[in-house]
């Protein structure tokens, strides 16, 4: 289901059907319903995004204006909240963003080759072992992380990586995230024609080479899905950084927010300023890769 085909069909569904059937209603009335529909949709969407709207506008308003009318537009806008948030002595925002970036980027950069190589390897095999391994892996998708949290910390302590970035990243690699990557890749690799791989094999290409040079380019949409979703999830993760990383190694953006402003949130201006800065990056990311994002979800739910 590509975006283009969907769009044309939609247009047909709305207005272009006259060739097949007579228009169900006279045209003016239809235009009114179309317009009413936009209005209803817009109203519903507005109510829905009100909290995000609040976060956006109030980040640029002083405390007294927020309390006077939280919905009002920030005019004239003040940058006080943002500068205050950025000039905190504990460097909450810059450090948090940096740490989150490190964890998310490295975790995803490692999960993608591991997950796809594993999926390729296993999808070329058959039999009961493969089935069992795949079921065991997909079970990882539903295991609540609270169940494995404490033993994971113990294991990291045994290998001397407790409360460190490598430890957190290792825990990310082995947990449910890998399950998700394998889940997506196996689905896509099923659709890679066997002939291509056989041909490459006859040419003398090794498994590693076939995987990297032939299969990976073919499953690029799967990689996009895995990269986008895992980056988002690991970026937003709370439990693992809170317990596995702990307070001494510098906070990720989520735990940083929790540990520093959990206490007293009386100054709404400050709070919204910090939230705005902490949230703006994933939102920008989402807006830029939006198409792949939706495509990923669509293909995921179709499988």
């Amino acid at each position, binding site marked *: 289901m590509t975006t283009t085909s969907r769009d044309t069909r939609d247009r047909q*569904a709305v207005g272009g059907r006259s060739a097949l059937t007579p228009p169900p209603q006279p045209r003016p009335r239809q235009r009114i319903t179309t317009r009413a529909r936009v209005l209803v949709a817009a109203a519903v969407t507005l109510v829905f995004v009100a909290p995000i709207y609040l976060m956006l506008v109030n980040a640029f308003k002083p405390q007294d204006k927020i309390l006077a009318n939280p919905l009002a537009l920030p005019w004239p806008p003040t940058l006080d909240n943002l500068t205050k948030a950025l000039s905190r002595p504990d460097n909450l925002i810059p450090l948090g963003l940096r740490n989150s970036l490190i964890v998310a980027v490295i975790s995803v950069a490692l999960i993608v080759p591991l997950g796809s190589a594993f999926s390729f390897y296993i999808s070329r095999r058959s039999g009961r072992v493969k089935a069992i391994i795949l079921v065991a892996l997909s079970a990882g998708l539903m295991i609540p992380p609270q169940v494995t949290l404490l033993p994971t910390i113990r294991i990291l302590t045994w290998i001397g990586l407790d409360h460190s970035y490598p430890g957190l990243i290792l825990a990310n690699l082995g947990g449910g995230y890998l399950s998700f990557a394998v889940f997506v890749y196996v689905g896509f690799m099923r659709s890679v024609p066997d002939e291509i791989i056989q041909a490459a094999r006859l040419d003398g290409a090794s498994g590693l080479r076939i995987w990297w040079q032939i299969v990976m380019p073919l499953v690029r949409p799967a990689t996009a899905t895995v990269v986008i979703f895992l980056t988002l999830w690991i970026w937003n993760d709370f439990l693992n950084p809170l317990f596995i990383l702990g307070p001494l190694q510098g906070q990720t953006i*989520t735990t940083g927010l929790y540990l520093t402003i959990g206490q007293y949130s009386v100054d709404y201006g400050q709070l919204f300023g910090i939230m705005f800065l902490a949230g703006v990056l994933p939102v920008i990311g989402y807006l830029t890769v939006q198409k792949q994002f939706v495509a990923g979800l669509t293909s995921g739910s179709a499988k």
Partner: protein
Amino acid sequence: MEDRRAVRKRNSGERGLALLAALALGLYVVFLVLPLLLSLRSSFTNENPLKAQNDFIGFANYTEMAGDDQLKASLTFTLILAFGVTIAANALGVGFALLLNRTSLSYRVMRTVAFLPQVLSGVIVAFVWQTILTQNGLLNTALVKIGLLDEPYPWLGSPHAALFSIGLVVTWVMSGFTTVVYLAALQSIPLELHDMASLDGVRGTQRFRKITWPMLAPGTTISVTISLITVLKLYDIITVLTGGGPANSTQSTALYIVKLAFTSDRVGYASAVAMLLLGLSALVALTVTGVLRRREVSL
């Protein structure tokens, strides 16, 4: 010569791939399977960091669960929240999807916006909602000012209201996801079906019941299952919003496990409760998927 080198290269390439695959599986075993087994083992002990020695106590932790009021309350809360949010978020998702399933630019903008709550981290979501819902929060201030309320309402401060408020926030987050899933499902409905229906004069609610709804079934399966599992393991939003209070009334089983293991020194018992949550998640996920999949076929 040439040939042998190629073969050696190829063999090392095979081994390389197998090695990567084995590494992935190994990581999964060490950081998911092993912790699970350790947790299972611990659930049969009285493990407690305050004590020097732990003993195997058989099923004592499991029998203790039967009489644990906090556990019962947490399970009730978790299940009500999970099913309540799933129903609400999926109903909203279908509604949104039907409403937004159009091509013009304004609809595309609205679709983009509807997914935003999913992008923000639970911590941010919860903090923003807290400023809205807290006793002196924006909602109470507004409602009192326009005269709808005489005095601030305890949105987070009474057990029932807090359950409702958390449900509202989580539904808000999940609806973005369900909307996108249902939109995708809607768009996979073959156009001819609608055209045929139009020829037969099937319209409006009837068309929804007879065509759209059955065709949404695969989307429903995914969306319902993921909503349920997400709520069962939810931690961040509740922790920030209420911390499990007031009086532990919003303490989900996931929160209870963490509290038992990390602050109440009851690691063994926490492991037993964790096993219960694991079993519950598996049961819910498998039955719901099973039922919905069968429904997909029968529809």
